[in-house]
């Protein structure tokens, strides 16, 4: 595999950090948002510029500093990271637009702070995506944790405060309490932290130790919200919706999952996991999360909390896919990072738009809302289809691959889990949609008059929903990335 | 070194020290501490450490006792133990 040195990954990471001073010193909101957009586009541009090289199988490497012997701050762009970076940087643009609409629509306070930390969070996300070793990954992982804290607690009220506490306790607690020792152990065992396609732990420790290590990692990256370390996610829904949307549907949670993927593939390596017979355990954990998450989502009334539990369940698909250790399953899992992102962000955008337009948060209060906000609710419908995994949306592809993966791995119970989960997804999404559109005029809580949220709020969900649909038919970049990533992992 | 004197004075020093910390009056403690310093000075002279003895004579017996008394004068003599 060809390796190219380039400073681009570093630039991609730093763009949004560099934007922060401009954001702070902007004189008025318009300049500030212009800067945000500029940063978002530049970032996306840089990421995109690396895409052809990555697709052609080249790795882009950038070593920033050697901080300890055998430990460096270094970036490496491979297919997996590229996929994740592409998703998050593209969605940042959309989210920026949405943020403007949402924040202005609600006339929120502290917008400068909001945009700054948003930019920082994005930097961290890209950093995680491009991390060449576990240390760099951990660095940006922590950075992300701290950068998102002010976003989560943006409202600065009692609820935000307690949620913020919970958020930090889970995220930072696990990363320090579980990941750090695991990482150090790995370092002590392997003598390095560099991700490699075969992992670097093979043949270094006793199986029991390695197993323990794996679980330290999987649960330690609590952003992946694997049960029982999931409850920060619903709590974090107190954040403004764009935050929930980008961070808790895309950046934060995906960073968690992405980290798990990295660890499984880059630290342990598929072969090692197979030799350890860890696949069933992983899949079992993921399945439990999927099912329980879905069931809990059924009983939610608050729309954002519903989405949160849905996210919990969906994230475990990815873990599940990886845990299957079969090429198809892994492709599905990795692809699901992208597909779920577009689907779920649409849903969050819609929830936010509803809140902006009507101030409603609960599903029971949304009866008949489809008449008032048809565009939004259509987007919502598309997004839920994607999550459920039904054509014409991108979610279908990833689910399909997952299903084939289970077949490939010959794990029938998992298949049932997937199916049951899809049903459950349908069961908690469809009533929302149904009640929004199909209700008697008496039941409707809204006047039968179209009154959408501001354009900046409505546009983004429409765009993402559209992309979601497009992805079903043209999943090429993501698909190829996922495939090449899997090829690299399995060495096929 | 003159061991007979040495042992005698050592024993005395012990009494002095116990006295200095048990007496229930700070001025008394200061004075006894002075006596303790005298003994120590003797002890060092006995062991041939003339310079140390000299220093202890000037410091321990002279100045530090005066300091103690001055401090007690500026505070109080009362003590509960």
């Amino acid at each position, binding site marked *: 595999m060809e390796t190219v040195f380039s400073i681009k990954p570093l630039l991609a990471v730093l763009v949004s950090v560099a934007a922060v001073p401009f954001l702070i010193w902007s004189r008025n909101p318009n300049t500030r948002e212009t800067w945000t957009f500029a940063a978002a586009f530049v970032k996306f541009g840089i990421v995109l510029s690396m895409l052809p090289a990555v697709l052609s199988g080249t790795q882009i490497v950038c070593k920033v500093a050697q901080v300890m*012997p055998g430990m460096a701050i270094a970036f490496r762009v491979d297919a997996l990271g590229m996929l994740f970076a592409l998703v998050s940087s593209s969605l940042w643009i959309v989210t920026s637009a949405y943020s403007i609409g949402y924040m202005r629509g609600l006339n*929120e306070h502290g917008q400068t702070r909001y945009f700054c930390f948003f930019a920082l969070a994005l930097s961290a996300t890209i950093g995680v995506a491009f991390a060449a070793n576990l*240390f760099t990954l951990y660095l940006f992982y922590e*950075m992300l944790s701290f950068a998102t804290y002010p976003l989560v607690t943006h409202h*600065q009220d009692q609820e*935000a*405060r307690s949620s913020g506490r919970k958020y930090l306790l889970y995220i930072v607690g696990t990363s320090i309490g579980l990941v750090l*020792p695991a990482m150090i152990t790995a370092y002590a065992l392997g003598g390095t932290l560099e991700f490699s396609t075969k992992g670097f732990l093979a043949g270094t420790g006793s199986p029991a130790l390695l197993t323990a290590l794996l679980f330290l990692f999987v649960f330690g990256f609590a952003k992946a919200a694997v049960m029982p370390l999931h409850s920060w996610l619903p709590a974090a829904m107190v954040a403004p919706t764009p935050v929930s949307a980008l961070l808790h549907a895309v950046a934060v949670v995906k960073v968690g999952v992405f980290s798990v993927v990295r660890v499984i593939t880059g630290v342990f390596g598929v072969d090692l996991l197979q030799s350890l017979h860890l696949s069933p355990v992983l899949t079992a954990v993921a399945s439990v999360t999927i099912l329980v998450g879905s069931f809990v989502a059924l009983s939610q009334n608050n729309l954002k909390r519903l989405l949160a539990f849905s996210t919990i369940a969906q994230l475990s698909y990815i873990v599940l896919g990886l845990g299957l250790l079969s090429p198809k399953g892994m492709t599905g899992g990795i692809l699901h990072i992208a597909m779920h992102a577009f689907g779920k962000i649409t849903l969050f955008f819609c929830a936010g738009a509803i809140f902006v337009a009507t101030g409603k948060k609960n599903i029971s209060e949304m009866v008949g809302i489809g008449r008032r906000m048809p565009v939004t609710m259509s987007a919502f419908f598309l997004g839920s289809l994607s999550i459920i995994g039904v054509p014409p949306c991108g979610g279908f592809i990833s689910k399909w691959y997952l299903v084939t993966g289970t077949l490939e791995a010959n794990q029938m119970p998992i298949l049932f889990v997937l199916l049951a989960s899809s049903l459950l997804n349908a069961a908690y999404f469809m009533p929302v949609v149904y009640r929004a559109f199909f209700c008697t005029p008496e039941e409707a809580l809204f006047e039968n008059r179209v009154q959408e949220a501001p354009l900046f709020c409505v546009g983004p969900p429409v765009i993402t929903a559209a992309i979601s649909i497009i992805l079903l038919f043209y999943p090429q970049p993501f698909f190829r990335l996922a495939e090449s990533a899997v090829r690299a992992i399995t060495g096929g | 070194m003159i061991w007979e004197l040495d042992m005698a004075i050592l024993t005395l020093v012990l009494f002095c020290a116990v006295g200095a910390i048990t007496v229930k009056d700070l001025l008394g403690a200061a004075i006894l501490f002075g006596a303790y310093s005298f003994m120590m000075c003797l002890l060092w002279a006995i062991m041939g450490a003339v310079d140390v003895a000299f220093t202890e004579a000037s410091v321990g017996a002279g100045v530090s006792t005066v300091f103690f008394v001055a401090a007690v004068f500026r505070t109080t003599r009362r003590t509960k133990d």
Partner: protein
Amino acid sequence: MSHHFPALLVIAPLLSAFFISGAGWLNRRFCLPLAVASLGVAGLSALSLFWRVVQQGPVLYRLGGWDPPWGIAYAVDFLNAPVLVLICIVALLNLWASHRQVEEQFKEKTGAFYTLYVLMVTGLLGITVTGDAFNLYVLLEIASLSGYGLIAMGEDRAPLATLNYVYMGTIGACFYLLGIGYLYIVTGSLNMADIARILPGLYENKAVLTALIICLVGLWLKMAFFPLHVWLPNAYTFAPVPSAALIAPLMTKVMVYVMIRLMLTVFTPGYVFSTLGINDAVVWFAVIAIVMGAILALGQRDLKKMISYIIVAEVGYMVGGAWLGNRAGMTGAILHIINDALMTLCLFLAVAAITYRMKSYTFSSLKGLIRKMPFTMGAFILGGLSIIGVPPTCGFFSKWYLITGALQAGHYGFMAALLFSSLVNVVLFFRIIEIGFFEPFNEGHGHGEHGPEPMNEAPLSILVPLWIVALGLVVVGVYTSEIITHVLQFAIPKAIL
């Protein structure tokens, strides 16, 4: 002249102390420039020494021209060169940051304050640079004595706290002296290297064992190792901020340095780790220290006291790391001396800035501070992150080494304690951030852009050094590898694996 740097290092501040003292009586305006100049000279000497050590290896300076076992020698090697630089930097930065407060607080006694300040730095530098066990004691007393003076000028309760410190500190120093006496009685020498040369024949001697134990207990008292820490929190809390910001970063760390010096150079690792077999016990003590420090820090309601207890926990890190008996642990301990000094300095300077504006440092006075003093709080948070151990701040790396050492030694208790204390630190610092972030907005939850909040930032003379330190945390973190490969790895004898 460059040949004389080891002497100049200590002499420059020492001589300036007398000038400052005189200037204090004659014209107070000269005090600060004199102090800065002398510390600058010391800092330059330290830097050039550091450079020379890195380039050419250890430097020996014979004071009075006498050869070591008879005269006193200064030995600069890989272990103390970085500490020397550290001391100078911390002292200079704090001097810069605190001069306003000093002049406001001490008025006519400014001269005396600066005299003691410089003397304290002299003592610390001397402790670090000296190669003679007894000379170390004298310098230790200089540092402590001036420390007492600096601390006692604080708040209402400072004298009592200081008096307790005096008691404990004196016991500590005396124990150290006694330990040196025990070594002297069996070896007949006071020079560290010379003792180390003689000692291998005496490993079975009970006096050597006792000497080690007594020295350690004495130093533990001085560095506030857990059950012996009782003097520290009050002393640091009630001390005036300018002195606390000097003493807190340096005193305990230099004591840790002395402990490591004793372990590595005087008693030799062979004796300390192999013959003795008290490693585990000490590390368990360290575990208790860390846990208790963290728990006690949780119960505090003001900044300085909280940081003081954090220091207690951090001392546990270093002692534990040094006693793990392997290379990684030792590296971590030495690295943490540097890092912890910087982190503590950062925190204390931030506290200084807060105190300067708010006239208080209780948690309740922090309300809304992130709005009012964003830069100060930013640096404070950075320091906090470093204490927590978040990369790329330097706190992470020393913790990394410590945990690696614990793993290699199979001492999971220590590892758990480290992680536990990191978690507690998260709680501690985010509690403060919460207060600073949330409190005044409780009633408002106001939507809409508020008018420009009244920003009341500390003066630049505090902010600039504060941010230098804060950024230094990151820079030191990033250059950890350089420090280790070029300096620290030579500081640890080959015998330790």
